[in-house]
């Protein structure tokens, strides 16, 4: 039965063998891998570079199928983009554990020179391929993916020299897949986290980063934060000691700053002291404007928010987000636009009215959700979160997964803050719910219409159409 407790050494090796049967990879020698990590310079130690920084570090998203292309791409982001941390984004077939298809795609890419995969198939590149990548660049690199069952990916990339790994059982299931059972996904991630813990115990800290933005689309902060806390707690149980909690920009300055503050303080409250908690802010993860100039405006608002809230890391977007995978130049441009704004604003003392009140509201809401989860699991967070999703007591808007109710519907209030229009079974205290309803009523009155799904649809489109709030009357309004 699923329990939030640390996997044993035997568990680990048993699973190790099982996952290796999915796809033949060379044998991984843990001791040799530790030695390899130890041979890397301090400047490639992801956790310490991140934790010791005195300003928000910038990291883009990027992944192409071929190794040499990936090296060139990351090199460009390092040089022209001045990225502080680098990513390697994994392709969709690998995320589905379809290593055979990924192999095909990789070979097609090698032959035709065209990228038929949407990311870097790290398992197919194997430990050696990963190490070549790590060695070719000066900056620490994180694995970013969206894989519900990331066990083989973790085994290969950890041995391959990566020291940071995004995702978690909730955040890489609920927004990323349809059919995966949540309890099973948690078990799979217990392996990933335990493996990270095993490296950590040997002095090779593997940084773990729950994927904060979830579906990227109007996710109410308390929901995102609760999921991050759950994943952080699960990871800590397995011995992870460097945890970066994430949050995706919603576009309201006060709410975003408040959410980042709440994320940090709740992280420190809920996660054990042995774990070092850092935060990451994702520039707007929802639909982008189909226009690079306007996209730069969206990116800049994210950068301005980061400059004020000062998270430990910022994940940048490119002005080509709308159109498809960006060119390396556009990707580097997104980094530089962000950097310019952060560096111009960071030293300014900027305090906004209302941040504290919103932070308290977010913290109370998150606690309300966390109480439910822990209660449902009888203080076992693993069982609690499964039960909570099962009953819709915790829920994510626009979630494609069968493991979530997906009954929660968000909409913006009259100030542009994301509130909840339909709660489904979401286990939020009634007085907290009233705040949401009240705020949305106020907006509905201001717009002279009913609270309705149309509001949600309008808000989903608003930023790509050039506004924050989807007022009736469209673009010109």
């Amino acid at each position: 039965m699923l329990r939030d407790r640390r996997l044993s050494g035997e568990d680990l090796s048993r699973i190790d063998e099982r996952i290796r049967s999915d796809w033949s990879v060379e044998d991984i020698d843990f001791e040799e891998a530790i030695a390899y990590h130890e041979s890397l310079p301090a400047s490639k130690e992801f956790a310490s570079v991140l934790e010791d920084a005195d300003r928000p570090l910038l990291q883009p998203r990027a992944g192409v199928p071929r190794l040499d292309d990936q090296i060139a791409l990351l090199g460009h982001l390092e040089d022209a983009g001045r990225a502080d941390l680098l990513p390697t984004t994994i392709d969709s077939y690998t995320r589905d554990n379809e290593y055979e298809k990924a192999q095909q795609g990789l070979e097609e890419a090698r032959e035709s020179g065209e990228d038929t995969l949407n990311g870097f198939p790290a398992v197919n590149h194997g430990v050696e391929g990963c190490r070549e990548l790590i060695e070719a660049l000066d900056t620490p690199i994180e694995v970013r993916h969206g894989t519900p069952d990331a066990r083989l990916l973790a085994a290969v990339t950890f041995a391959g020299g990566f020291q940071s790994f995004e995702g978690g059982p909730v955040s890489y299931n609920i927004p990323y897949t349809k059919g995966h059972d949540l309890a099973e996904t948690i078990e799979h991630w217990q392996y990933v986290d335990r493996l990270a813990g095993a490296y950590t115990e040997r002095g090779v800290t593997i940084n773990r980063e729950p994927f904060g933005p979830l579906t990227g689309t109007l996710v109410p902060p308390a929901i995102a934060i609760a999921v991050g806390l759950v994943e952080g707690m699960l990871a800590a149980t397995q011995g992870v000691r460097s945890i970066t909690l994430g949050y995706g920009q919603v576009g309201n300055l006060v709410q975003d700053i408040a959410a980042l503050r709440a994320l940090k303080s709740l992280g420190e409250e809920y996660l054990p002291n042995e774990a070092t908690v850092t935060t990451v802010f994702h520039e707007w993860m929802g639909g982008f404007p189909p226009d690079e100039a306007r996209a730069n405006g969206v990116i800049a608002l994210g950068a301005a928010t980061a400059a004020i809230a000062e998270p430990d890391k910022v994940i940048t977007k490119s002005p080509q987000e709308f159109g498809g995978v960006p060119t390396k130049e556009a990707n580097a441009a997104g980094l530089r636009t962000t950097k310019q704004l952060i560096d111009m604003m960071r030293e300014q003392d900027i305090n906004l009215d209302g941040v504290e009140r919103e932070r308290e509201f977010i913290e109370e809401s998150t606690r309300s959700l966390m109480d439910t989860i822990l209660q449902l699991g009888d203080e076992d967070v693993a069982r609690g979160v499964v039960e909570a999703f099962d009953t819709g007591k915790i829920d994510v808007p626009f979630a494609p997964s069968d493991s979530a109710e997906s009954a929660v519907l968000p909409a913006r209030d009259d100030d542009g803050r994301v509130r909840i229009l339909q709660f489904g079974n979401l286990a939020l205290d009634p007085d907290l719910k009233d705040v949401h309803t009240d705020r949305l009523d106020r907006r509905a009155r201001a717009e002279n219409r009913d609270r309705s799904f149309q509001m949600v649809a309008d808000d989903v489109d608003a930023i790509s159409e050039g506004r924050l709030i989807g007022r009736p009357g469209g673009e010109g309004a």
Partner: protein
Amino acid sequence: MEVLSAMSATVILGVIGSDAHAVGITILEQALSTAGFEVVNLGVQSSQQEFISAAQAHEGDAVLVSSLYGHAEQDCRGFHEAIEEADIDPITYIGGNLAVGQDDFEETRDCFREMGFDRVFDSETKPTEAIAALKADMNIAESEAERARLTT
């Protein structure tokens, strides 16, 4: 073709392949229902076979395939052959972000038209455009205003 009322028209909707982008079809589903269509939403990560079975089971007049993540071409290979084999003849649309990288949409459109899709939509498509197209293709009476919007 007979003149249908939207009420009697059934639309099969889903995201193909291992793509999990759910927001677009959530918006589309709601808009199509409001416009009077019978919508069967398969959700994300639906296989070709799931689309075909649903079209058979629900006598779907139209199949709307969504794809955002850049693998549409691979995911749709052989789809129209399979439809033909299944002996059904729904209108087929595909829409979303159909190519990996920063592609020219005209090329993309041609590619999917050749594969057999009746219409190909880019990711700037608003639900109203899809509805107007469906009404036109299904010969459903529509207001002047909608017709005007479609032809622009």
